[in-house]
């Protein structure tokens, strides 16, 4: 329990500390130290949960499903903090930011971590909403950090669209509460997930169905599902690179996590009606549309960060689809995919940050010959894209293969669509990647001080997961699958 509280509340402390701390260099290090501490605490907690089973106390609830997401979040937060320290210092030296805004950046970074960890670990579905909305509020100023007109515009779009989406999610939450009250759930249980889940079979199916529609659209907006995705490419391309990394790698996961939690309730409520899989079908629909649209959009991108944010939409679509298909195999694959996608995508954004430093632009047409100017960055980008496109032996290959297999079992004719989509996305990524990495470098392009350790670690992990999933992790994922899909895979 202590470890859990430390994990969640270290960033909360960090908000205050970093908001008050004036030193520029120092706050970068403090940010890193706080993230490291939170990571350590979360690993201790993970081991505890692994050994002693789920923790439910003081309004928190940690089970197999969220424990690995908690560990993943603190891990990516830590590695991004490693990258962010020198990167943001360099940005500051370029004169794009002043000291006040650097303070804002660091405080918001910790605030963002706090809201996400709270969203993942809380037992109360209402608090989950409050935390996800809080994540919007803390990141909106990060997106507009550079104060350029386009950054302000992107942030405004992000604010308004996510605000609307999240409002719908609140309405869904109210409906869930309503359904719970109608089902005579004791008042003190309120909105706590651990109390609602065992009783959700008694909930009124109509109310839960309606609630799930609102929740899927609401949290789906945050997860970047098409057609509510318009904020995502803007926010990713205009915000500072470390923010893009955590948005893509973590925030989208949290939103999807919320959807899946509610799907578990909705599935129970709908079990004995005429449409027991209605929630799953909805998710499959949204997922497929997002997957296809984003895959096609990859081809027409001219901004490197926008391109990878579309790739994020594509993968979120794939995961939503897989969760929608349901069943142990697809669920296991989706959980694995959440993990490997996070690791890979944050690694890619970190590399992209360096690449755009080298070329001094984010326009794809002007980024050329990375591998000649700075081999580490060029290779990082190449391997990262290879991983995200689903090349073996990276972990994404494994999870995508599992998703395809699961689809083949229950929806054979959709497999073709998925395969075509994957090929289209692959082509979209590589046609832009090839000249960026191998093209001839412009005159006077120089290497920059780049810290590629986080990238190497992330890609190494993804590679490892592709070759062999460690027994402990497989056990976790299997537990989570058992929780979501009813039965385990192993």
């Amino acid at each position, binding site marked *: 329990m202590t470890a859990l509280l430390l994990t969640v509340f270290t960033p909360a402390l960090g908000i205050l500390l970093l908001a008050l701390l004036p030193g520029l260099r120092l706050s970068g290090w403090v940010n890193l130290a706080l993230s490291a501490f939170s990571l350590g605490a979360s690993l201790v907690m993970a081991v505890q949960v692994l050994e002693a089973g789920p923790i439910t106390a003081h309004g928190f609830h940690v089970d197999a499903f969220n424990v690995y997401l908690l560990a993943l979040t603190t891990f990516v937060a830590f590695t991004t903090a490693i990258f962010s320290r020198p990167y943001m210092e360099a940005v500051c030296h370029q004169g794009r930011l002043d000291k006040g805004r650097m303070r804002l950046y660091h405080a918001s970074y910790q605030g963002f971590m706090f809201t996400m960890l709270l969203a993942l670990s809380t037992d109360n579905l209402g*608090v989950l909403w409050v935390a996800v909305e809080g994540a919007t509020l803390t990141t909106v100023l990060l997106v507009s950090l550079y104060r350029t007109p386009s950054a302000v*515009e992107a942030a*405004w*779009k992000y604010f308004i669209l996510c605000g609307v989406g999240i409002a719908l999610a609140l309405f869904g939450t109210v409906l869930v*509460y309503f359904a719970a009250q109608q089902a005579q759930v004791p008042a003190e249980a309120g909105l706590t997930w651990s109390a609602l889940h065992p009783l959700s079979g008694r909930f009124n199916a109509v109310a839960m169905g309606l609630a799930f529609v609102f929740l899927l659209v609401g949290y789906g907006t945050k997860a970047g599902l098409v057609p509510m995705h318009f904020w995502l490419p803007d926010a990713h391309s205009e915000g500072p690179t470390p923010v893009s990394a955590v948005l893509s790698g973590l925030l989208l996961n949290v939103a999807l996590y919320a959807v899946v939690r509610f799907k578990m309730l909705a599935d129970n409520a709908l079990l004995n009606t005429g449409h027991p899989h209605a929630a799953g079908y909805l998710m499959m629909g949204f997922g497929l549309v997002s997957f296809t649209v984003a895959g096609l959009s990859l081809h027409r991108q001219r*901004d490197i960060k926008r391109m990878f944010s579309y790739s994020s939409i594509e993968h979120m679509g794939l995961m939503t689809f897989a969760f929608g298909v349901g069943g142990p195999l697809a669920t296991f694959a989706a959980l694995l995919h959440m993990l490997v996608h996070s690791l890979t995508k944050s690694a890619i954004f970190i590399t992209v940050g360096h690449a755009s430093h080298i070329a001094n632009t984010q326009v794809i047409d002007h980024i050329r010959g990375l591998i000649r100017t700075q081999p580490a960055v060029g290779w990082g980008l190449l391997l990262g894209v290879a991983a995200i496109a689903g090349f073996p032996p990276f972990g994404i290959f494994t999870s995508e293969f599992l998703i395809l297999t699961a689809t083949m079992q229950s929806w054979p004719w959709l497999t073709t669509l998925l395969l075509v989509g994957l090929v289209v996305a692959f082509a979209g990524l590589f046609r832009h990647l090839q000249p960026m990495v191998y093209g001839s470098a412009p005159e006077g392009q120089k290497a920059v001080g780049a810290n590629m350790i986080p990238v190497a670690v992330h890609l190494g992990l993804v590679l490892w997961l592709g070759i062999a999933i460690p027994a402990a992790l497989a056990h976790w994922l299997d537990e989570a699958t058992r929780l979501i899909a009813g039965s385990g895979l192993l």
Partner: protein
Amino acid sequence: MIGQLDLLHQAIFVLAALVVFSSFFLLSHSRLTSAIHGFAFQGMLVAAVAALMARAGGNPHLYLSALLTFTLKGLLIPWMLHRLVRRLDMEREVENIAHPVVLVLVGMALVVFSYWVALPIERMQATETRNIVAVSVAVVLLGMWMLIARRQVVAQVLGFMSMENGLFLAAVSSTQGMPLVVELGVAFDVLVAAVLFGVFFFHIKESIDSLDVDRLNRLTEGKEA
């Protein structure tokens, strides 16, 4: 039938109907300062509904929510918006609404739609106030429509905030209010959002020298700098 209810519930219904009217007022009103007054009025109405519900249902914690809403949505946020409008020198600003009639007609269609959406919920509930669920959905949708249709940043913020009013009304009318922790958390989020909106007014004004979102058009697909 309304005739069988006591005066308290009749008053609740009248106030709820007025909330919808205030949404339409916000939707179609082009003068900024009076739109902010309209929003304050809506906040107070919603708080009054909650207070009457608390009285009717004997539910003391709703009084607290009502008080919170009254201070936040009825007084504090309108005051903040007024101050911002004054500081940005926009008191006389009148937005040029392109199609006022279409705006209102779509709004009416949304009210009908929300009635249809809320119908299954209403059928399940036994309390007298179940009909207000449709009203709250309507307020949410009207706020959303305002966000889409209006081009003025302050008007969009008002739409956003009136959506929150609708959500509060939904929580109050369908479930006698959410648990207190959630209620407080939501109120806190709304407050922070209001402050951030204020910050954004200045940023937007600085970057495009106007608060008209039509001029926020740099980021369109395939046209990056």
